[in-house]
C-alpha cells in the first residue's frame, strides 16, 4: 500500500496536539508557534490531498483499509470523495487562522499556579479537534466515523468550558457559571444525539453485519441487502437526529447560541465553521447513502424544519443583543439553507449545499473573528455598548462590513454562489419552499446591517473613542479570509468541479433525477 496520505493528514495535528501539550509551562510562546507550525503543515498535507485527488476518478480515492475490530465488523477504512476533500481543505485552512486569532486568548491570568498550563492546553485541544474532524471527513466506515464524531465532543467541551470569552457581563463566578452551563449544554445535547445514533449504529450492524459504507451502499444498491421499511426509517432517524443536533437544525439548536456566546471567538468559529460541518457532511454522506428510501420519506418534514431554521434563525438574529449570539443565530439560519440544499435532492441543491459548507465556514470565520477582535478591545459582547467604531477604527469596520456582506451573501462574494445554487436547486423541485427560503435573504440583510449600523456607525461612543485599529496579526487573519471570499465568489469553479462528481454519485444513490426545464420537457 502506498503512503497513507489520509492517515497522515489526520495524524499530523494529533501529533501536534501532543507535542504542544508537552511544552513546559514557561514556554508559552513556543507552544503557540509549535501549534501554528503543525496546523500549517496539516494545511500543506491537505493541499497535497486536494492535488492528488482526481475529480474524474473513482468515487472514493486515496483509500486505506486495515483490520481493526473484527468482532464489531469494524475496519479502519479511509477514503475521500470531492465533498470530503473540500471540507478537509476548509478545516485545514481555517485552523491556522483560528490559532492565530486566538493567540492571546489563553494567556494565563496571574492568579493561576505554575502547574496550570492553559495556553498549551488551548492550542493542543484545537489541534486535537482538527485531527478528529479531519478523520471523520475521511472515514468510510460508519463505526470509525461514529467514534470520532463522538470523541471530538470532549476537546470541544474543554475548549468551550475551559477558555471562555474574557469579555462578559457580570462577576467572574457568574461568567464561569454561564460558561460551564454552555459547555455542559453543548456536550449533553450532542451526547444524547450521539447515543441515539449509537443505538442506530448497532441496529445497522444487526441488519448489515458490517460497517463498511461502500459495502453496505453497494449491497443496498444491488438489492442484496434489503431493510424492512420501518427498520430503515428508524435507523435513518437515529442517524439524522445526531446530525441534526450537530448541524444544528431547529428545534435542536439552542445549544449553539450559548456555546458560541460563551466561547472565545476563535473557538466559536471552530464550532460553527468546522465541527458543525461534520453534521451536514454526514447527512450527505451517510443518511442519503445508507438510507435513500427513508431519506426520501423524511424529506418533507426535514424541508419544513430547514425552512423554519432559516426564517426563525434569521428573526432571532435580528432580536439579539449580543454580537456573538447574533452570529450564532445567523449560522442556524445558514445551516437551514445547507440542509435544504441537501434534501432538495437536486444536483444544484447538493453542490450548492457543499459549496455552502465551505463558504459559510470562511464567511463566518471572517465575521466572527473580526467581531472577536472588536469585543476583545471593548470588553463587551453587547451591541449596545458600541457605536461609531468606523470613525476610530476604519479598517476593523471595513473588514467587519465585508464579513457581514458575505453573511448576507452579497453577489460577488462566495456565499452568494452557494446560496443561489441551493435556492435554485430547491426551487426546481419544490417551488413554494424555494420562494419562502428566499425571504431569508431579506432577513439576512436586516440583521447584518442592523448589527453594522448599531456598532460601527453613528456618533462615536466615548468608550470606543480610543479603540485601536486592527493590528498586523489580526490583519493577517482577516485579509486572507476576505481575499478567499472574493476569489471563491468570482471563480468558484475549482470547488464546484471537485464537488460535482461526488454529487452525481449521491444523486444516483437516492435514485433521483433533476427535474427537466419545461421547455425541454415539452419537447
Amino acid at each position: 500500500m502506498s503512503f497513507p496520505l489520509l492517515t497522515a493528514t489526520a495524524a499530523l495535528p494529533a501529533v501536534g496536539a501532543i507535542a504542544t501539550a508537552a511544552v513546559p509551562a514557561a514556554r508559552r510562546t513556543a507552544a503557540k508557534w509549535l501549534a501554528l507550525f503543525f496546523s500549517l503543515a496539516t494545511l500543506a498535507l491537505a493541499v497535497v490531498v486536494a492535488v492528488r485527488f482526481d475529480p474524474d476518478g473513482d468515487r472514493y480515492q486515496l483509500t486505506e483499509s486495515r483490520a481493526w475490530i473484527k468482532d464489531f465488523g469494524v475496519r479502519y477504512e479511509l477514503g475521500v470523495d470531492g465533498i470530503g476533500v473540500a471540507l478537509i481543505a476548509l478545516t485545514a485552512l481555517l485552523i491556522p487562522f483560528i490559532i492565530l486569532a486566538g493567540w492571546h486568548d489563553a494567556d494565563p491570568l496571574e492568579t493561576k499556579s505554575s502547574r496550570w498550563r492553559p495556553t498549551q492546553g488551548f492550542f493542543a485541544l484545537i489541534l486535537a479537534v482538527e485531527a478528529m474532524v479531519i478523520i471523520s471527513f475521511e472515514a468510510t466506515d460508519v463505526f470509525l466515523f461514529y467514534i470520532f464524531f463522538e470523541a471530538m465532543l470532549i476537546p470541544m467541551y474543554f475548549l468551550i468550558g475551559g477558555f471562555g470569552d474574557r469579555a462578559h457581563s457580570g462577576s467572574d463566578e457568574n461568567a464561569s457559571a454561564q460558561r460551564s452551563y454552555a459547555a455542559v449544554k453543548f456536550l449533553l445535547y450532542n451526547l444524547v444525539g450521539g447515543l441515539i445514533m449509537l443505538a442506530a449504529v448497532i441496529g445497522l450492524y444487526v441488519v448489515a453485519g458490517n460497517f463498511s459504507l461502500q459495502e453496505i451502499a453497494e449491497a443496498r444498491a444491488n438489492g442484496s441487502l434489503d431493510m424492512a421499511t420501518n427498520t430503515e426509517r428508524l435507523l435513518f432517524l437515529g442517524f439524522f437526529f445526531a446530525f441534526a443536533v450537530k448541524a444544528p437544525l431547529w428545534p435542536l439548536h439552542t445549544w449553539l447560541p450559548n456555546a458560541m456566546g460563551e466561547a472565545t471567538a476563535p473557538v466559536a468559529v471552530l464550532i460553527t465553521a468546522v465541527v458543525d460541518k461534520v453534521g451536514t457532511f454526514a447527512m450527505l454522506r451517510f443518511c442519503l447513502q445508507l438510507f435513500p428510501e427513508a431519506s426520501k420519506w423524511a424529506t418533507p418534514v426535514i424541508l419544513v424544519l430547514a425552512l423554519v431554521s432559516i426564517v426563525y434563525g434569521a428573526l432571532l438574529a435580528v432580536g439579539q443583543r449580543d454580537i456573538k449570539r447574533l452570529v450564532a443565530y445567523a449560522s442556524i439560519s445558514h445551516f437551514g439553507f445547507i440542509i435544504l440544499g441537501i434534501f432538495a435532492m437536486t444536483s444544484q441543491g447538493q453542490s450548492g449545499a457543499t459549496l455552502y459548507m465551505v463558504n459559510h465556514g470562511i464567511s463566518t470565520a471572517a465575521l466572527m473573528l473580526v467581531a472577536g477582535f472588536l469585543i476583545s478591545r471593548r470588553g463587551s459582547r453587547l451591541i449596545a455598548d458600541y457605536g461609531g467604531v468606523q470613525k476610530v477604527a476604519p479598517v476593523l469596520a471595513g473588514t467587519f462590513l465585508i464579513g457581514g456582506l458575505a453573511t448576507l451573501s452579497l453577489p460577488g462574494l462566495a456565499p452568494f454562489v452557494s446560496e443561489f445554487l441551493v435556492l435554485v436547486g430547491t426551487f426546481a423541485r419544490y417551488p413554494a419552499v424555494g420562494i419562502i427560503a428566499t425571504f431569508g435573504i431579506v432577513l439576512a440583510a436586516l440583521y447584518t446591517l442592523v448589527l453594522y449600523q448599531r456598532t460601527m456607525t453613528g456618533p462615536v461612543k466615548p468608550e470606543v473613542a480610543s479603540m485601536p485599529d486592527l493590528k498586523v496579526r489580526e490583519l493577517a487573519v482577516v485579509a486572507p479570509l476576505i481575499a478567499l471570499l472574493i476569489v471563491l465568489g468570482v471563480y468558484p469553479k475549482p470547488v464546484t468541479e471537485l464537488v460535482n462528481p461526488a454529487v452525481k454519485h449521491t444523486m444516483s444513490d437516492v435514485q433521483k433525477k433533476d427535474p427537466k426545464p419545461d421547455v425541454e420537457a415539452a419537447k
Partner: protein
Amino acid sequence: MDTENLIALLVAAPLLGAAVLLCGGRRLDRVGHWIGTALAAVSFVIGLVLFTDMLGKGAEDRSLHQHLFSWIPVEGFQADVAFQLDQLSVTFVLLISGVGTLIHLYSIGYMEHDERRRRFFGYLNLFLAAMLLLVLADNYLLLYVGWEGVGLASYLLIGFWQHKPSAATAAKKAFLVNRVGDMGLSIAIMLMFTTFGTFAFEPVLEATGETSEGKLTAIGLMLLLAACGKSAQVPLQSWLGDAMEGPTPVSALIHAATMVTAGVYLIVRSGEIFNGAPDAQLAVTVVGAVTLLFGAIVGCAKDDIKKALAGSTMSQIGYMILAAGLGPIGYVFAIMHLVTHGFFKAGLFLGAGSVMHGMNDEVDMRKYGGLRKYMPVTFVTFGLGYLAIIGFPGLSGFFSKDKIIEAAFAKGGTEGWILGSVALLGAAITAYYMTRVMLLTFFGEKRWQPDAEGNAPHPHESPKSMTIPMILLAFGSVFAGGFFSVGDRFMHWLEPVTHHDHGDSPLSAATVTGATMVVLVIGVTLAWLQYGRRPVPVVAPRGSLLTRAARRDLLQDDFNHVVLVRGGEHLTRSLVYVDHTLVDGVVNGTAASVGGLSGRLRKLQNGYARSYAVSMFGGAAVLIAATLLMRAV
C-alpha cells in the same frame, strides 16, 4: 482589432480604481480623486470607441459578445461571466460613464473639505463598475451581481456620512427595500431556470414562445418587483426620499441619472417576456402611472430641495416604467426619456448641490430666495434643466415626455385613455412643482437668516470643477432630445434590440402636443400664483390634508413603520421569548424533571438496613411472582 475584447475593460477600469482607492490607504489621499476621475474617464473613452466602432457596422451585427470564463459550472446549471454589448447597452454605457465622469469631476470640488474624499471616490468607482456590469451582463445572474453591486455602492454612498445616524438609517433602509426587490429578481431567475433551463438573455428571450403565458406573467411580475425596488416605484419607493441623506453628487449620479433607471433597463431588456404576458405589462403600466402621480404629488409638498427633486425623479421614472409597460410602442421612448432625464435631472441635482454649497448646506428652499443674483451659472444651468424637465418646447424633456404621452394614448382602448390622461396630469403637476422649486430658490427676495451660531450664509458661485459639469449637462438637457428625435434617429438606433410599432393613437400627435402645452401652462401659472406673486413664508404653513400627507411621503413610511417595523420588532421579541422559554424550556424542563425524580427516589435510601431488607424482600416476592407469571401466561 476585434473590439469585443474591450468590453471587459469598461468594467475593469473603474473596478481597478475602486480596489486601488479602497485598499490604498492614506498615502493616496492626495491623488485619490484624480485617479478615480481618470479611470471613470477611461471607461467613457472606451465606451466611445466601442460606440463609434458599432456605428461602423450594419444594424444586424452590432451586437458584440465577450465570454470571459464559466462562472458556476454545476450539473445542469450554467452561469458564465460573459458580456453583451448592443445598441441598448452601449447607450447606457455612454450615459453612465459620461455622466459618471462629469460627476466625478464635480465631486472633486464638492468633497474638497471631506477628509474621507479618497474613499468617496473609491465608492463612486465601485458604483460605476457595478452599474456597467449590470448593463453589460449577457445573462440575468450576472446582471443580478451588478444589480446588487449598485445596491451596495448606493448603500455605502448614502451612508457616507456615517456619523449622522439619519444617514446610516437611510442607507440601511435603501438596501433593505432593494433586497425585497432583489427577491423578485432572484425568484424570476429561478423561474427562468426551471422554465428554460437557462437564464442567459438570448436563449431565454428566443424561447419565450415555447412556454405558457402564465409562466411568462409570473416571471414578468417578479421582474417588475425587482424594478420597483431599484427604481423606487410604488410600493417600494419609500427609500428614495431618505437616500437624499447622501452627498449631492451621489444623489445626482445614482439616485437620479443612472442606478434608479436600472429597473427600466431590466424591463426593456426583458421586452420579449413582457410582450408574451399582457397582464404583466398592464401591471407595469399601472405601477408606472401610480408612481408618476405619487412622486409628482410628493414633489409638490417638499420644502427640502433635494427631496423635491427626488419626488420628481420618482415621477419621471414612473413615466419611463409606464412607457416600458406599453411594450414595443413605448420601449424606445422609455429609454430616450431615460437618457434625457439623465442629463437634466443630473444637472438639476448638481445645481441643487451648488446652491447648498453656497448656502452652508442649507436644504430648506424656504430659506433660499433670490439666489439668481449670487450664483448666475448655477441659475442658468438649473433653469435650463428646469425648462427641459417640464417639457418646454424644443428642449430634451419636451421630445421624450411628449412621445411617452402619445404612446400612452396609443395603447388604445380605455387603458390607453386612462394612462394617457394620467400622463398628461403628471405633466401638469411636474410643471407646477418644478416651477415652485425654481421660484423658491432663485426668485423672490432673500429669506435666509444667520443660523444658531450667528454666521449667515454668504451665497457664492461654486468653483470651476463644479460649474463645468453643470454646464455640460445643461447642454445635454437642451439639445439631446432634439438630436435624438430628428428623423427618429434614436428609434432606428434601438429598433434592432427593442423593436418598435407605432400603435394606433386615437389622437393625432399634434393634439397630444397641444394638450401637453396647455397643461404645462396651467401648471406653471398655478405655481406662479402661489409662490411667484406673494412672498413665501419662511415657516411652512400647515397646509391641506393632502399637503401634509405628501410631506410625509403620503404616509407610506408611517405605514411601513407601523406594519413592518413595529410588527417585526414584536415578532422577533416574542420569538426570542419562545426560543428561551419553549424550545429551550422543554429541554431544561426534562432535565429538571429527571433531577426531581432523582431527588425523590433518593429519599428511599433512608439509611435503615431494615428498609433495605424490605425492598429486597419485596423484590424477591416480585421476582418470584413474575417468574411464575411468565409460566402462567
